[in-house]
C-alpha cells in the first residue's frame, strides 16, 4: 500500500492551493489525485478574465490563474496523479483510486483534504416540463464544449438562471456569433456577481428577465423553442404571461451542488443548507483528520477566496499530522447563522486553538440594503458593521479575533446575523 502524509482529492484551485500550503507548512509527502487529464479543474475552461484580482492584484484568465498554482506545485515537488478517480475513502484514511496506468491503488494517508468541487444542477433536478431533446445544456457543459472542444452548442440561445456561469456563457455565446435572446431568472434578483451582469449582459444588450422561468421545452429531437413565463411570489408560473422563444439551445445556470458523495460514504456530516461538510475553524470535518475546502465545502463566487480557504485547510492539515492528537470536540463553540444569514463556514470555533484572526464566510438569503452584520457571543454583541448592499450572489465575511473571544471563557454560542439597526 502506498503511504502519504496527506492525500488531496481534487486538483482544481482548492486542491492546488491546499497542497502548496501543506507543503510550505512542513508536510513532507503529499499526493494530489485529479480525475481529469490536467490540473486546474474548471479554471481550464474559464478562459475569460477577472481571476486573481484579490490574490495577484491583476486580472488573469482561468488557465493563467491555475498555471500560477500549478507552477508552484511543480516547484514544490508535490506528487500528483491525473485521470485518477477516487472510488472510496475509509474512516481510517485509506483512499482507493483507479486509473489506467496503476490500476486499482490504495493509499494510506494520515490526513485527507476533500477538494472535489461541485456540479451543476441539472434540468431534471429543476423539474422543467417538456420534451428532452438535444440542445439543453448546463452552462458549464456548454462552456467546456465551446472553450475546450471548439464546438458551438447552438446559434439561438435562451438561458435560464443568472448564476455567474450563465452570465459568462451569455457573453461567450454572443462572442461566438450566437444570438442570445434572453436570460430568465426565477428569483427577483440575479444570483450572479454585479460585475458579470454589467459586463456580460448589459454590454451586449442581452435582456435579463427577473421573476421568470422556463415552463416548457419544445422540439422532440433538437430544441425548437422554449416557453418562458413570469412567476408569482411563490415562484409559480402566472398563467397568461407565457412568451414563446424560438431557439435551438437552452442553457441552464441554476445553481451548483457540492459533490459530496465520497464524503457521505465516509460518514462526514453535511450541512443541509450548503450540502457541504460541517467544519470546525481548522476546516476539519466531523471525521478527524479529514479536511474540506473550496466548492465541495460551500460554493464560492470568486476563486481567490477558494485559494485562501484551501491554503488554510492545507496549513491545518499539515499541523494536524505534526501534532495528531485529536482535540476535545466538547470545547468547540457553535457558530449559528440567524436572521438573514443562511449559513457560515466554519460551523464551530475553538477559541483557545484558533489563530489570532478567523475569517467566517457566509451568504445572505435575500437582497439587503443598509443592514448591519452583527456577531454575538451569547447575548453580547461583538461586531456591528453596516453594509450598503448584500445579495445572495456575493459571499460575505466577518473576522473573529482570538483575543476578543478569549474574554468570554464561559461562552456557549456565537451568532452571526443581520440587523436593521
Amino acid at each position: 500500500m502506498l503511504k502519504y502524509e496527506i492525500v488531496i482529492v481534487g486538483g482544481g484551485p482548492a486542491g492546488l492551493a491546499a497542497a502548496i500550503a501543506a507543503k510550505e507548512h512542513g508536510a513532507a509527502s503529499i499526493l494530489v489525485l485529479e480525475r481529469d487529464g490536467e490540473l486546474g479543474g474548471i479554471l481550464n475552461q474559464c478562459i475569460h478574465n477577472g481571476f486573481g484580482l484579490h490574490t495577484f492584484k491583476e486580472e488573469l484568465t482561468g488557465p493563467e490563474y491555475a498555471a500560477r498554482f500549478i507552477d508552484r506545485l511543480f516547484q514544490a515537488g508535490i506528487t500528483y496523479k491525473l485521470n485518477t478517480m477516487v472510488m472510496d475513502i475509509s474512516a481510517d484514511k485509506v483512499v482507493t483510486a483507479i486509473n489506467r496506468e496503476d490500476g486499482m491503488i490504495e493509499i494510506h494517508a494520515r490526513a485527507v483534504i476533500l477538494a472535489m468541487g461541485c456540479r451543476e444542477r441539472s434540468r431534471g433536478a429543476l423539474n422543467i416540463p417538456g420534451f428532452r431533446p438535444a440542445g439543453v445544456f448546463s452552462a458549464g457543459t456548454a462552456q467546456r464544449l465551446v472553450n475546450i472542444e471548439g464546438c458551438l452548442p447552438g446559434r439561438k440561445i435562451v438561458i435560464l438562471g443568472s448564476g455567474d456561469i450563465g452570465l459568462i456563457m451569455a457573453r461567450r455565446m454572443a462572442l461566438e456569433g450566437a444570438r442570445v435572446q434572453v436570460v430568465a431568472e426565477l428569483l427577483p434578483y440575479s444570483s450572479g456577481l454585479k460585475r458579470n451582469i454589467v459586463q456580460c449582459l448589459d454590454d451586449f444588450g442581452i435582456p435579463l428577465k427577473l421573476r421568470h422561468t422556463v415552463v416548457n421545452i419544445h422540439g422532440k429531437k433538437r430544441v425548437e423553442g422554449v416557453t418562458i413565463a413570469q412567476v408569482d411570489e411563490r415562484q409559480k408560473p402566472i398563467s397568461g404571461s407565457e412568451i414563446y422563444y424560438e431557439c435551438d439551445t437552452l442553457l441552464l445556470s441554476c445553481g451548483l451542488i457540492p459533490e459530496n458523495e465520497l464524503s457521505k460514504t465516509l460518514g462526514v456530516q453535511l450541512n443541509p443548507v450548503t450540502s457541504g461538510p460541517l467544519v470546525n475553524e481548522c476546516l476539519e470535518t466531523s471525521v478527524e483528520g479529514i479536511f474540506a475546502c473550496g466548492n465541495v465545502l460551500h460554493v464560492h463566487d470568486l476563486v481567490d477566496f477558494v485559494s485562501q480557504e484551501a491554503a488554510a485547510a492545507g496549513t491545518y492539515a499539515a499541523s494536524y499530522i505534526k501534532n495528531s492528537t485529536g482535540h476535545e470536540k466538547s470545547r468547540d463553540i457553535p457558530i449559528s447563522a440567524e436572521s438573514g444569514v443562511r449559513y457560515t463556514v466554519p460551523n464551530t470555533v475553538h477559541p483557545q486553538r484558533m489563530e489570532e484572526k478567523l475569517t467566517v464566510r457566509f451568504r445572505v438569503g435575500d437582497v439587503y440594503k443598509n443592514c448591519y452584520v452583527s456577531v454575538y457571543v451569547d447575548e453580547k454583541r461583538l461586531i456591528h458593521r453596516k453594509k450598503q448592499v448584500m445579495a445572495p450572489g456575493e459571499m460575505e465575511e466577518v473576522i473573529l479575533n482570538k483575543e476578543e473571544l478569549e474574554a468570554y471563557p464561559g461562552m456557549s454560542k456565537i451568532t452571526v446575523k443581520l440587523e436593521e439597526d
Partner: protein
Amino acid sequence: MYDVVIIGAGVSGCAVARELARYQLNICVAEKEEDVCCGTSKANSAIVHAGFDAESGSLMARLNVEGNEMMEGLSRELDFPFRRNGSLVICLREEEKPELETLYQRGLKNGVKGLRIIGREELNTLEPNSSDEAIGALYAPTGGIVCPFAMNFAFAENAAENGVKFQFDTKVTGFQRTDNDWIIQTNQGELKSRYVVNAAGVYADKIHNMVSPKKLHITPRRGEYCLLDRSAEGFVKHTIFQLPGKFGKGVLITPTIHGNTLIGPTAEDIGDREGTNTTRAGLEELMSRAGNTVKGIPLREIITSFAGLRAHEDGHEFCIGEAEGAPGFIDCAGIESPGLTAAPAIGKLVAEIIRKLEHPLENPDFTGTRKGILDPKTLSKEQHAALIQEHPAYGNIVCRCEMITEGEILDAVHRPLGAKSLDGVKRRTRAGMGRCQGGFCSPKVMEILAEERKLEYSEITKSGGKSQIIVGTNKDRL
C-alpha cells in the same frame, strides 16, 4: 427476401426475434428509430408484475404470470439485471379492504404464487416508510424489478448474434400483398417477406389497419415519472402500489434495479403518438400523489423526469395473432402494462404461431446465451485490478456519477447493434444517467463516439435523426 420481418425493435419485437432465431428463418427487424429500445420499452415503470392486476382468463393475465416465471432463467441466460424485490398494494381505508380481497382472489385465480394479505404491523416491518394511514397490504413476493433497457438489448443482441438482421431508421409506410408474400414499403425501400410481425407499439394500430379490414384503435396513454438519485436508495425496498380506488389508478413508488427510486406514472390519454413530453400538471400530480402510500419522500433527490406512452388498445387486452384478412401478418399489438413482464412469453407465443404456420427447421447453431456489458463494480477489487491490467480502459472513469469506465463504453459501441448516439451509450451503460445527468461525461462520451465511429463532432447525435448535440464550430459563421 425474408421469411419474417418484425416491425419494431422494442422489447416485444426483440423478444419475438430472439425466439424465432431458434429456427432456420431469415429474419429482419425494421425499426423507425436509430436504435433498439426507443419507444415504450425505454420509458416505463421497469417492474416485473406479479400478475394479480389483469382480468382473470385474459391473455394479459396468462402472459403476465408466464413472463414473470420465465424472468429469472432468462436474466441468467441473457445476462440482464433482475431481482424479485416483492410488491405491495397498500390499503389506506377500512372501506377499501374488499378491494384488496378482490385483488388477492384474482391473483390466486391468475396463478400468482405466494400472495398474502398482511396487516399493518408486518407492512411496517417490510416498509418502515409506509404511510401512517396504511391499514394493510397485499404482498406479492414474486413481484420484481428489471433493467428494461438491458432486457431489450439482451433479446436484440442475442437475436443478432443468431443471425437476425436489424435495419434502423426504417419507417414502414405501406404494404402490398403478392400471392404468398408481403411487400413492405419503407422510407428505405421495399422489404419482401412471407410473414410480418407487427410490434410497432403506439403505431401498431396504424400498421395493422394498413392490411386488415378489422380495425384496431390504440390510444397513446402518457405516463410521467420522476427519478430519484441513488443517494435515496433504500427509501422503499418493495414496489409499492396504491389500491386502485376512488383516486383512480394510483402512482407507484419503487426502487429500480440500479438503486434509484422511481415515482410514477400518471395516466393521460393524448393524441400525439410522439408526445413523450412531461407537463407541469403531470409532475405536480406526481408530487401530490406520491405521498399517499409512503411518508417523507426525499423529493430533493429528484434527478430527472420523463414520460412514456403506453399503447392502450380500446379493449385493454393484448392483441396477438394473425390479423383478420391478412394471412401471415401477425399482430403483437396493444402491449401496455404488464407488457414488459409479459415480453418473454409474448416472444414465445408469437414464435409458436409462426412455427405452426411455417413448420421451420430448428436452427442447429442457435446459442441461447449472451453476455452483457461487463460492469467492473460487480467484480472484487482484485478482479477489477486484473481487468485494468489487461484492458486499461477499465481504469478510466468516464461517468463519475455512475462510475462508468471507458471500457464499458467501448464495449457498448463495439458489441452487436452497438451504440451510435449519446442516448445509445446511456441506455447500454448508464453513463449520463446519474445525478449530473451527463453534464460532465457527455463531452467525453462524444469524444469516444467520434473516435470509435469515425464521426465529426457535428455528426454526433443525442438520439439519432436530427438530434445533433452541437451545431457547428466556433465562429464558423462570423
